Structures are given as structure tokens and as C-alpha cells.
């Protein structure tokens, strides 16, 4: 080593990268690779984990990377570090999704609440008892995460059901999804107990918009987790262009629906199976 490397900084960056690998992803694809550098963490898309049939554009892939980016920011903010984020920093490297540089003199981008959020982010599951089920929707209202109002729920459920039927009818798409994910996407009695459907929207229906939508989704999901509510992304509903249009019309928004999710009372369970760190984390120069 020729230049001195601040070990504290390295630890913080590595922690942030590990936290990023713990982020939720659409259908648990975990389609990313984190690179820890001297003063930055990079999030790269791992195309080998893209759902080629259900997600040919990489919409969900980039959305998932967005939630990983939120975890990076939370982790660094919790360590009191200021950051500078560049989304899609290099034109010629479309798979380099974001680079987060440490700016030592700056304030953290997210407030100290992030310390609590980081715990939830890294644990993956929330074991806090449900405090105020239903409240999360108040948090997500407005901005770019919409709660589906009760009168529209039946229609949105229809769209969800239609999307799942389509996946079932298409062997190639079906093969990309574990049966458990399809059943999780369907409404259950438990889910029906709380106002449970939400839609993440963004007006930029391109990779920037997908990424931002993922970032916001994860902030919202963590906030829900702290309140004892789990959110389950329902991918198929936004995987088909015509259903996206249908959702947009139903919700009466001009923005493009990026993800439908279901909120359910959090069930304590074992941590999810993660891809190995040796496959998702690299220490770069």
C-alpha cells in the first residue's frame, strides 16, 4: 500500500456495501455486485441475475439496485459520514448503477433515524412488535409512493391476478419465479386485515426513474418495518406494459407505476437466504 488508507473509513465503506447486499430485491433476485474502493462504494448491476423473461428491460433489476443504494446511504449516514452520490456515473458503463463517494466534511444525507433503519436494513426482517398497523400508508402517501385507496383495491387486485395468470401461462416466465413468490403476491386473509396495497410511481419511465423508485421503495419499506409492517413487492403486475398502463389509468396518475407492493403484518422468521458475499462483494483498488 503506497497511500495511507483510513481503516475506519474502509470499515464504514465495507459495512455499507454489506448492508447493500442485504437490501430487498424484486423476487429476491439480488441482481447486484458491490465494489468497495478507497473512498467510495459502487453498485453494479449483475445481469446474470436479471429475470430475462419477466424483466427484459432491466426495470426491476435497476429498481432493486435502487433499494441497495438506499442501504448504502443509510449505513454511511449512520456512521456520520457525508456522501456524494452519482447515479449512472459513466455513460459507457450502463451496468455501473451508482457510485457513492465519502465527503468527509459534509453532513450525512439522511438523518439520525437512519441508525435504527440500518439495523432493520441489515437484519432483513423486523422483529419489532406491530405498533401502528395502517400508519405506514400515511407515511407513503403523496410523493411517489401511492397507497391504493379502498375503492380501487378490487380493481388493482384484478390487475395483480391477471398478471399472475399470465406468468402461470408462460412456462419461460414461470420458470423464473419460485412458486412461493407467486403465492406471496396473491392476497391473503392476513393481508386483507390492513390497507395493504401500494404502488411506487415515477414520472421518468427510464433507468433514472426506476432507480429512484427503488430508493424510495426501500426507505418506505424500512419505515414500515420499524412499525411492524412488512412489504412484499408484487413484480408481475408491473412487468407487462399494458398492465402498467391499466394501473396508471386506474390510479389516475400521469406517472408510470414501477412496482406494486403488498403490506402485511410482519411475521418474525428466519433471515432470508442471501447470495454469498464472495459473489456480490469485491474489494477494488
Amino acid at each position: 500500500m503506497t497511500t495511507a488508507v483510513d481503516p475506519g473509513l474502509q470499515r464504514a465503506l465495507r459495512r455499507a456495501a454489506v448492508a447493500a447486499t442485504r437490501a430487498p430485491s424484486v423476487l429476491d433476485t439480488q441482481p447486484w455486485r458491490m465494489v468497495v474502493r478507497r473512498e467510495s462504494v459502487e453498485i453494479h448491476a449483475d445481469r446474470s441475475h436479471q429475470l430475462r423473461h419477466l424483466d427484459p428491460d432491466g426495470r426491476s433489476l435497476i429498481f432493486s439496485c435502487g433499494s441497495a443504494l438506499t442501504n448504502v446511504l443509510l449505513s454511511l449516514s449512520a456512521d456520520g459520514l457525508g456522501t456524494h452520490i452519482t447515479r449512472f456515473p459513466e455513460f459507457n458503463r450502463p451496468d455501473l448503477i451508482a457510485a457513492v463517494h465519502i465527503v468527509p466534511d459534509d453532513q450525512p444525507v439522511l438523518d439520525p433515524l437512519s441508525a435504527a433503519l440500518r439495523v432493520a436494513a441489515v437484519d432483513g426482517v423486523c422483529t419489532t412488535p406491530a405498533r401502528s398497523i395502517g400508519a405506514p400508508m400515511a407515511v407513503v402517501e403523496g410523493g411517489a409512493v401511492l397507497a391504493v385507496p379502498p375503492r380501487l383495491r378490487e380493481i388493482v387486485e384484478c390487475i395483480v391476478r391477471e398478471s399472475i395468470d399470465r406468468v402461470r401461462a408462460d412456462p419461460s416466465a414461470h420458470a423464473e419465479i419460485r412458486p412461493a413468490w407467486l403465492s406471496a403476491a396473491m392476497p391473503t386473509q392476513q393481508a386483507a386485515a390492513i390497507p395493504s396495497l401500494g404502488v411506487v410511481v415515477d414520472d421518468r419511465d427510464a433507468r433514472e426513474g426506476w432507480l429512484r423508485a427503488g430508493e424510495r421503495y426501500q426507505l418506505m419499506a424500512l419505515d414500515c418495518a420499524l412499525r411492524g409492517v412488512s412489504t412484499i413487492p408484487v413484480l408481475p403486475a408491473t412487468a407487462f406494459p399494458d398492465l402498467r398502463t391499466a394501473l396508471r389509468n386506474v390510479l389516475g396518475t400521469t406517472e408510470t407505476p414501477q412496482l406494486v407492493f403488498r403490506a402485511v403484518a410482519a411475521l418474525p422468521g428466519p433471515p432470508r437466504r442471501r447470495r454469498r458475499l464472495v459473489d456480490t462483494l469485491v474489494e477494488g483498488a
Partner: protein
Amino acid sequence: MAEVFPGESSAWNYHTPPAESATHAIEAREAPALRSPDQKLSLRREQWLSAATTITRDLLVDAGADSLQVIARTVRDVAGARFVTVALPTHDGRHVMIEVAVGAEELLGTTYSVDDSLAGCAIRTGQAVVHRAADTEAPPEWDQLPITQRVGAVIAVPLLGPDGVRGALGIARPAEGDDFVAVDIEMAMMFANHASVALELADGREQRYRVEILEDRARLAGDLHDHVIQRLFAAALRLEMAGDDIADDDASDEVSSVVTSIRDTIGQLRNTITGLRSQTVATNTTTLRRRVERVTDEFAVLLPHHARLRIDGPLERVTDRMLADDVVAVVREMLSNAGRHAFASQVDLAVVAGDETITVVVVDDGVGVGSPERRSGLDSLTRRADRNGGTFIVDTARPGTERPGTRAVWTGRIVGT
């Protein structure tokens, strides 16, 4: 790391458990205890054995949990350890990375040279490696812990799978704790072997679901190939022979056109089968063939008839992502032109890979290339051809007829030839 651990004399850098001295040590130290040393050892042995028998069940029953976590937690409980890590070799083969760190989450994701760490040493040699509490310096992968979590005795035990060493368990006791004795090491090795087998089983189950689907596809492809095509082929041959004996010209023409259509069907079946096979081989990467097919499918709604697609030659030789993306974009653009502007009723699309070039040909029966709004699309096709060292030519398919149609031929050089 070099300044912390100079040279070969590092205390942790030996591979054989210190059986004699360690056993003596524990006898001397534990003499005043209620249990006799023998009893204590046999109790430990028992705990290890029962942990080894339950680990398989735990790994197989609990589908959601991470097997490595389960292993590490079990070891921490049974070994009286404060920290347990699982280190795995990285893809370059020269490093190990801490994959699981029970009690020492701080270490997650840290990497060390294979030559310069306890875990690396265990992975390299396939032997247990011991570090005694009295040795002054902590092994490199442990010295990064905060000062309050200083470790004492550490052992690293290889996880031996059927294909060699999969990784290493690192088991550490606090600075004030006991050294590991021979029975600990022996038992840890036994446990690690057990856990490796369980790990294989658990990982295998994870793969099974996917494999079943792939096998299904492979079988389907095999059946189609073995039976359907041969029967069609035989039918076409018999028809052809019968057609030769028919005197009536009209009837004879009719028969030969049926033969042609059977041959076409065989060609399409072969395309399908190649598609099925390529999915079973490369599940993670969408082949260019699939992408072209998908784009063609997308345009089914725009065209009165589904475009007739012919794919020929080794498309898999197009490994360059940029070229593949361009080919897909070209197919899309050309189909879109035919569908939106040319009012074509029938579109034929061929994508042919040769030794040096890949060619995309689209022939439609539409109104021809006259209209100016089609120019911008054509410009972009020319640009895509230029940057791939190829050409783009548009002309009239059937000059002078009422529906002259368009023939567009795009080529690109396959990189690496």
C-alpha cells in the same frame, strides 16, 4: 499485513494440533474443578457429537435460513467460542472473504490473502490450524476487531466438500479464555466434515427446482427431435415418391407443395428445439436468438400476420454485447418500419450468422420506401451498420408491381474474426 506478521515464524503458522502439551495444560489448569478432566472431555465430546447429528437435520428442515449461519451458530454454542466465522475462497483463488461472522459482524466482507491468514492456511492445506492464546499477535483476520473484542485462542478448520475445500470455519475464544485442546480440534474437524455434507445437501435442494424445469425442457427437445421430426421427414419422403408416380400435373404440383410445407415445418421445429436446448445450456444469459424471437413476437400485434422468422448459422458467435444489442435494435427498427409505415401484410425476417458477418434481411410486401417519414429510422440503421463495419441497403423487393414491397439488408462484422 507484512509488518504485522513478519516471515514464517508467525506463531499461528503451523498445522498440527498441539496434542500433547495442550492436554497437559488443561489437566493442570482444571484440576480443582468439580468434574475430572476425563469427565469434562467426554462431556465436550458428547456435545460435539450431538451437534454434528443435529446439524444435518437443521440444515435440511429450515429451508429459509442460511446454512452457513446455522453452522456458525451451532459451533459457537458447542465450542464455547465467542466468535465464529465462515471464510470462503474468493473467485480469484488468492483470497478468502469472511462470509459469516457470528458475534463479530464487523468482519463481514473483509478479505485476506490466502497465504496470510489462518482461514486461508486451513483452506490451502486442508488441515486444522491452531493459534494459541499465548501467541502475542492475533491472526490477521481477527486483529481488525475493536480492542474490546480481542480474541485469544483461535482455530481454523477446513470445510471439506466432495470437490475439495469449500471454505474454513474460524472459531475464536475471548482473550481470557482457554486454549483449544486436542479433543476440541479433533471434534471440530469431525463436525466440519459433517456440516460440509449437510451443506452439499442443502445447496443441492436449492438447485433442484431449477434443474427439474431444465430437465423437462431437455426431454421435450429430445422427444421432438427423436420422434416428431423423423416421422415428418419420413412422411415427406413417402409423399415425394408417391408424387413422382402421379400423372396428373395439378395433383403432382399439389403434392410437391405439401412436401415443401412439411419441410418448412421441420425447419421451424428445429428452430424451436434449438431454442429449448439453448435455454437449458445458458439459463442466465439470454441468447441473441431468444432476443430476436422475442422482438418478433412483440411485433405480432402490429402486423396482420406474424412475421416469418428464419434464423440460421451460429448466432452464439456474436458474443459482443454491443453488436448483439445493435442486431436486436435493427430487427426492431426494420419490423417497425414494415408494420407502421409500409402497410405490409406479410413480412419475412431472416437473421443469418456467417463466418465474419451477421446479416439481417427483412422483406415486406408493402408500399415501398418512398415516404419521407421513414428516413430517420433508416439513418439510424445506417449508423448502426457503420459502427459495426457493415452496410445497410434498402431497395424494392418487386419493382414495377402494385405492391413493390421493400427489401432491407443490414450487415455487421462479428468481432473477433
